[in-house]
C-alpha cells in the first residue's frame, strides 16, 4: 500500500504540474488545448534527438523545454489566431477543433518521421528507502524537479507583478484592462509558459517510464481529467487534484489492474462534476 501511495504521489505531482498549463490556457483565454500532450511529446523527441547527436542530457533537456515553449508561441501566432476574434463558447469550441487538428498533424508527422523514437532518461544507481519502501532514484529526482517547478510557479503567480497580472485576467478581464493589462499579451505568455511546462513534464515522466511518439493523447487526457477535477482556471486546484488522482490511479492500478485505472479516474472526474460542478477549487460563475 505504502509503495502504491508513493508511486501515486510521484505520478500525481507530475499530473498536477501538467494540468496547471491546461487550466491556465482555459481560465485565461477560453482555450481548451487538445494538442497539449503533443507539445510534451515534441519536447521529449527533440531532447532525445539532440542526445543522439552527442550532446549531454542537461543542455539537450533545456533545448527540449525551450522548443515546447516556442511551440506555444508559434501556436499563438498561427493556428490560434482566428480564436481571438471570438468570445465565450464559440472560442472554446473552435479551440477544441483547431487544437485537435494540430494534435493529429503532430502525431502523424512524428509517427512518420520517428516511428521508433522515445525518450527514456534512466537514472542509474540503487534504490533509496523512503518510509521503508525502496524508491528509484529517477522517481525521486523527477518528484524533486516537479516540486521545485511547482514552487516556482506558485511564487510567480503570488508574488510577482506579472504573475498577479495573469491572475487578474482570469479573475476579471475587464478589470484587468482597466488597470492597463493587455489580456492578449498575458495569454501569449501563458501559451509559452504552458509549452515549457509540457516539455518539463515530458522530461520528468521519462525518468520514470519512457515517453514515446504515441504518448501525446494519453498525456492530454490525463491533464484534462486533472484540470476538470481541480477546477478550470485554478492553479492550486490543479496541483491538489493531480496528487489526489495520482494516488487513486496508483492504488487502482495495483489493486485492480492498469487497464481499469483510467476508467476509475474518469469516474472520479464525473463524480467531482456531479458533486462540485466548478471542481475542487474552481471559480463559481
Amino acid at each position, binding site marked *: 500500500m505504502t509503495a502504491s501511495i508513493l508511486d501515486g504521489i510521484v505520478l500525481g505531482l507530475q499530473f498536477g504540474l501538467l494540468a496547471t498549463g491546461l487550466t491556465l490556457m482555459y481560465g485565461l483565454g477560453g482555450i481548451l488545448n487538445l494538442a497539449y500532450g503533443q507539445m510534451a511529446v515534441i519536447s521529449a523527441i527533440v531532447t532525445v534527438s539532440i542526445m543522439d547527436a552527442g550532446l549531454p542530457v542537461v543542455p539537450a533537456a533545456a533545448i527540449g523545454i525551450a522548443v515546447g515553449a516556442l511551440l506555444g508561441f508559434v501556436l499563438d501566432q498561427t493556428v490560434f489566431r482566428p480564436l481571438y476574434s471570438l468570445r465565450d463558447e464559440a472560442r472554446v469550441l473552435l479551440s477544441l477543433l483547431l487544437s485537435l487538428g494540430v494534435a493529429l498533424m503532430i502525431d502523424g508527422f512524428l509517427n512518420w518521421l520517428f516511428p521508433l523514437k522515445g525518450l527514456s532518461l534512466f537514472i542509474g544507481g540503487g534504490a533509496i528507502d523512503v518510509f521503508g519502501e525502496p524508491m528509484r532514484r529517477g522517481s525521486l529526482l523527477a518528484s524533486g524537479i516537479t516540486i521545485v517547478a511547482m514552487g516556482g510557479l506558485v511564487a510567480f503567480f503570488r508574488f510577482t*507583478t506579472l504573475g*498577479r*497580472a495573469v*491572475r*487578474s485576467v482570469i*479573475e*476579471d478581464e*475587464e*478589470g*484587468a*484592462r*482597466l*488597470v*492597463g*493589462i*493587455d489580456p492578449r499579451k498575458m495569454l501569449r505568455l501563458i501559451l509559452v509558459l504552458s509549452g515549457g511546462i509540457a516539455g518539463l513534464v515530458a522530461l520528468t515522466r521519462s525518468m520514470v517510464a519512457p515517453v514515446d511518439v504515441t504518448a501525446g493523447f494519453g498525456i492530454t487526457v490525463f491533464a484534462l481529467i486533472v484540470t476538470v477535477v481541480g477546477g478550470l482556471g485554478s492553479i492550486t486546484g490543479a496541483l491538489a487534484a493531480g496528487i489526489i488522482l495520482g494516488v487513486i490511479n496508483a492504488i487502482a492500478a495495483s489493486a485492480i489492474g492498469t487497464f481499469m485505472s483510467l476508467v476509475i479516474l474518469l469516474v472520479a472526474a464525473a463524480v467531482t462534476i456531479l458533486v462540485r460542478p466548478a471542481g475542487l477549487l474552481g*471559480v463559481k460563475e
Partner: protein
Amino acid sequence: MLDVRGLSAGYEGGDVVHDVDLRVDEGEAVMVIGSNGAGKTTLFRAIVGLRPASAGQVHFAGDDITGSPAQEVVRLGLSFVPAERHLFPRMTVHENLALGAYPSRPDPDTLTMVFDLFPRLAERRRQLAGTMSGGEQQMLAIGRALMAKPRLLVLDEPTTGLAPKLAAEAYEALNTLRGRGLTVLVAEQQVPLAMALCDRGYVLEGGAITKEGTSAELADDPEVRRAYLGVT
C-alpha cells in the same frame, strides 16, 4: 483635458449614443446626468476604450484616443471606475491596489494617500475583495483607479447599490480628491450628490445631450428639477 466630439456608439443592433459633444477642462468636475437607459454607461465605455465608437472623436490631454483600447488609455492618465467595479474578487485588497499601479510597483505615497482617504481599506488590506460589502468594494474600485495616478478620473454611477450614507461617503471622498486638483467626470442618477460635487453638467436623454450648463443653472432648470431632483 478631455474633448469628445460627435461621438456615437452602441451595439450590433444600432447606436445607443448619438453625436455627443462633451468637454472636461483641467481641474474641473463635470457630471453627466440622465435616467436609467439614457446611454450614460455606453457613452463612458466608448470614451475610455471599452467599446468602439461608430463615429466621432475622443481627445485626451492632446492625444487622439478614439479607438484606443482601455488598457492603453489608462496609461495616458485616464482611469475609469465602472458601475460594476470589476475588482479581482479572489485577490486581497492590497493585491487589487497594487495591480492598479500596473506595470509599475505600487508607489508608497499613493498607497498611503488611498489608505488615508479610505481608512477601512487599510484595516482590511489582507481581506479578499470579493468578501467585502458593496460600499467597501466601491472604495476599493476608486482606490485601485487612483493607484495609476490618473489626471482624469471617470466614474460611472459610483453610488450604484450603496445605502444613502455610503453614497454620501463616496462623494465626500471625491470632494477631497477634487480639492487636491484631480479632474473628475462622473455619471450619476442620484443627481443632488453629483450637483454638490460638480461645476458643470450635461443631461443625457435617449442617447443625446439635451441640456448643458453649470450646476447652478441645471439646478434652476424646471425640467431638470422635475425629472431629476424630484421637485414637482
